């Protein structure tokens, strides 16, 4: 079971070269001159080289030469401990063990471990076995090996975590482990329905059998799906994912002490909101805990930040704040988020903004230009300086923006058509739906199809300008470019419900919020994280994370993704159908477990060093012999 294997065994043929010095040695022996001589007794005492000694020296030389050649060949063959990895020719059984939160119910993961252990035991004796654990990400716990004891130990050491399920990630990892080898995949999972939701890629090569060992979900699950502070209380939402009516006790805990508790009765699959009142005091973080003895455990606790961070200042430049428009929709959209704790919008017309100092201007994380007609020269210079100095600007090209002076405002020629273009019924089409601004519209896709733009200004194509969205007619409607050290987003229509009914659409708020977040990213520390996103350096687990020191200390919370709390599961048949199959030929260079092991061990380097030592010894002995 444990032995030496070689990554490139063909190089071992080179070891045949070791026969050369052996043959030379034998040939040399045969041609050695032998003289029958009578007076040898007079030679034995002479200072001559003793034949036996010479024979020994020749033998040592031979051994060193043979060893050097063999070591050279063996080093090139890249040896490694075969006990750690199976040979490339072995058929591999990959066992993928789900360690997501949906297997964290009491006793559930033990059943999963048992099933995985059984899968290992029932694999054909000639097969190598590999173990993958997966949740939000997949980890190769044991590369393909014939050491099943190691696999069983890894299974026993595994534990369910708080991560979500990502089947495609697991399948991609299994595919990498298989590489070009024959094999099969055994997935031990609860078939969590949310496991297919993640936008990722991964499939299994054609011909590789996938067996599912389904682990039953618990009879019920109760989770705290949200918690937020509102004045002196914490509003929590508790969800019953089970098919039975459930009564659950909910506690508000601050610094390990229970402030209050409540009991809630929930109908099947229903949620309930609770107002948890208590003396929160100066506490910065609280926990809402629900008692759930049978369901998933990590989702029983939700962490909530009590002291919100200051809102990000955003300036909105309008033509006339007292007029019919004036950034009302944008202001409302941004202030409605998180009850106005995220953004603080200051609306100013050109005459007011022109009086701002540079410092006052730079206090704002972003500037949204909705109108420029009242902006005088000083204001234009201020905006231009702000943008060139690293400011973030969203410029809308509505009716309150003067195309003739916009160049003076932003400092570059935008290439904007002076006259508006009528485009009745035109809708927004993202050029790249993965752009952060359009992330909320990925699922369900097509939400921006409701946005209709009646008029817009045409933007000519320019180098350095990235089109983020176009109208259905093809004109760019949202672009991004850098100006000096700043960033400029240009929206080709208006956001004040004059040329477009966009502000009246449900998609306007997420669009405005994500645009504002995109422009102000990095300006406000994020306080709440949802797995698998965690602050840099924080563990991949729900809880409280402290960052900074002294006066800059701040606390953040990491919560589980409640989509994992659902008990809904797919069937094994649907699971099998959902697996993407990839042609064998599409498989890239396999991540060879044996190669990884060999790379870690690097025996070839030791071999070459020993070979050099042998050559040095040969030179030394040979020199003395000469």
């Amino acid at each position, binding site marked *: 079971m444990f032995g030496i294997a070689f990554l490139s065994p063909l190089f071992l043929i080179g070891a045949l070269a070791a026969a050369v010095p052996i043959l030379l040695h034998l040939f040399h022996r045969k041609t050695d*001159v032998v003289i*029958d*001589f*009578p007076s*040898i007794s007079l030679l*034995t005492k002479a200072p001559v080289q003793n*034949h036996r000694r010479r024979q020994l020296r020749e033998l040592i030389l031979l051994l060193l030469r043979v060893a050097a050649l063999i070591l050279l060949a063996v080093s090139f063959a890249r040896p490694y401990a075969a006990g750690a990895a199976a040979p490339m020719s072995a058929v591999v059984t990959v066992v993928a063990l789900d360690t997501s939160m949906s297997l964290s119910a009491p006793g559930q993961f033990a059943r999963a471990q048992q099933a995985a252990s059984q899968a290992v035991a029932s694999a054909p004796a000639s097969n190598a076995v590999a173990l993958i654990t997966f949740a939000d990400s997949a980890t190769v716990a044991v590369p393909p090996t014939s050491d099943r004891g190691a696999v069983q130990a890894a299974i026993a050491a595994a534990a369910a975590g708080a991560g979500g399920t990502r089947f495609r990630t697991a399948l991609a990892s299994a595919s990498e482990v298989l590489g070009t080898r024959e094999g099969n995949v055994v997935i031990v999972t609860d078939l969590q329905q949310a496991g297919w939701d993640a936008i990722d890629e991964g499939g299994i090569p054609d011909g590789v059998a996938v067996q599912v060992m389904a682990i039953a979900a618990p009879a019920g699950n109760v989770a705290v799906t949200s918690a937020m502070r509102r004045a002196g209380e914490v509003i929590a939402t508790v969800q019953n994912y089970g098919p039975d009516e459930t009564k659950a006790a909910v506690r508000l805990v601050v610094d390990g002490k229970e402030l209050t508790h409540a009991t809630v009765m929930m109908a099947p699959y229903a949620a309930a909101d609770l107002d948890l009142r208590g003396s929160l005091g100066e506490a910065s973080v609280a926990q809402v805990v629900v008692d759930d003895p049978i369901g998933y455990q990590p989702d029983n606790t939700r962490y909530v930040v009590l002291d919100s961070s200051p809102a990000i200042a955003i300036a909105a430049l309008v033509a006339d704040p007292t007029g019919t428009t004036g950034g009302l929709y944008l202001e409302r959209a941004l202030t409605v988020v998180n009850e106005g704790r995220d953004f603080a919008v200051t609306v100013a017309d050109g005459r007011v903004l022109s009086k701002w100092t540079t410092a006052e201007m730079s206090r704002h994380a972003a500037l949204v230009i909705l109108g420029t007609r009242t902006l005088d020269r000083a204001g234009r210079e201020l905006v231009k300086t702000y943008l060139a100095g690293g400011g973030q600007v969203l410029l809308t090209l509505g009716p309150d923006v003067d195309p003739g002076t916009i160049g003076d405002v932003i400092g570059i020629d935008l290439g904007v058509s002076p006259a508006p273009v009528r485009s009745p019924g035109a809708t927004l089409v993202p050029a790249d739906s993965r752009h952060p601004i359009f992330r909320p519209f990925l699922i369900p896709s097509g939400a921006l199809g409701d946005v209709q733009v009646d008029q817009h200004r045409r933007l000519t194509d320019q180098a350095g300008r990235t089109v983020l969205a176009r109208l259905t007619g093809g004109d760019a409607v949202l672009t991004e470019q850098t100006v000096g050290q700043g960033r400029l987003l240009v929206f080709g229509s208006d956001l004040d419900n004059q040329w477009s009914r966009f502000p009246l659409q449900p998609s306007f708020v997420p669009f405005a919020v994500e645009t504002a977040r995109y422009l102000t990213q990095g300006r406000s520390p994020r306080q709440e994280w949802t797995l698998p996103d965690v602050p840099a350096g924080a563990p991949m687990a729900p809880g409280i994370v402290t960052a900074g020191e002294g006066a800059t200390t701040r606390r953040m919370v990491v919560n589980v993704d409640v989509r994992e709390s659902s008990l809904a599961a797919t069937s094994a048949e649907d699971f099998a159908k959902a697996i993407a199959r990839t042609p064998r030929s599409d498989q890239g260079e396999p991540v060879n477990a044996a190669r990884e092991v060999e790379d870690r061990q690097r025996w070839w380097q030791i071999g070459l060093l020993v070979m050099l030592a042998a050559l040095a010894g040969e030179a030394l002995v040979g020199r003395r012999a000469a």
Partner: protein
Amino acid sequence: MAGEARYLDPAIVARLGTIDLKARTIVEGFLTGLHRSPYKGFSVEFAEYRQYLPGDDLATLDWKVYARSDRHFVKKYEEETNLTCHLLLDVSGSMGYGSGAVTKLQYGSYLTGALAYLMNRQRDAFGLVAFDDKVSTLLPASARAGHLRVVLLALERLKLGARTNVAKPLHDLAAAVRKRGLVVLVSDLLDDPRTVLDGLKHFRYRGTDVVVFHILDPDELKFPFEQSARFRDMETAAEVMAVPSAVRAEYIERMQAMIAHYRRELGLVGIDYCLLDTSQPLELGLMAYLMTRRRVL
């Protein structure tokens, strides 16, 4: 080398036929040369005069000489000068070495054969003992007609033996020889010098004269090898890897030390020592023998 003398060259002798022919060729060539040499008169046909000593048979007095010189001389007859000689030839493995036309054993055989032939002409009794670590051939000393042929035939059939053990045959022979005589040892003496000397001294203590012919190959004297090689002992098969250029000087020094040791130690006890390398003419050996014989007699 011209005339008959060329037959004293071991390389030429080696190409001759039987040991009988070789011995005769060597001796006749040698004797032919003697007629012109300072050793003239040492012919077997020569009757020697010796000053009369009290106790000599008066019948042996040569009155004619007395009449001419007014001195008493007795005339020695050839039969009275007969000598019992034992030819000891080492046939151990190390004697099989030969870098030139002949091996040490061949050279020793020719020398022994020539000596036997010469002794036969002088009417001396001679015997042959061939040995390695034991006596392999033993022909008792005899002056009978036909004994030469037996000895030469035995020399012809000699085979290389195993390890050298000079001392044991010497001791055995010393114990067996009852009559004073001459022992001729032909060997490469590659044995423990102390035991060799002990054996030879054994003869001397019993009143037997000894002459030692130390046969060595030129390679053993000069160690002319150039290439590194494994040198394998011809008797024990033990091997020594040697770089000749590195060991030559010390080897030669050791060899010369051994020769000097033999020469000195044997001289101290009155044993004639004659070093012969296999490239040298055989007459040197015969000359050494005759000088010893003259001293003995």
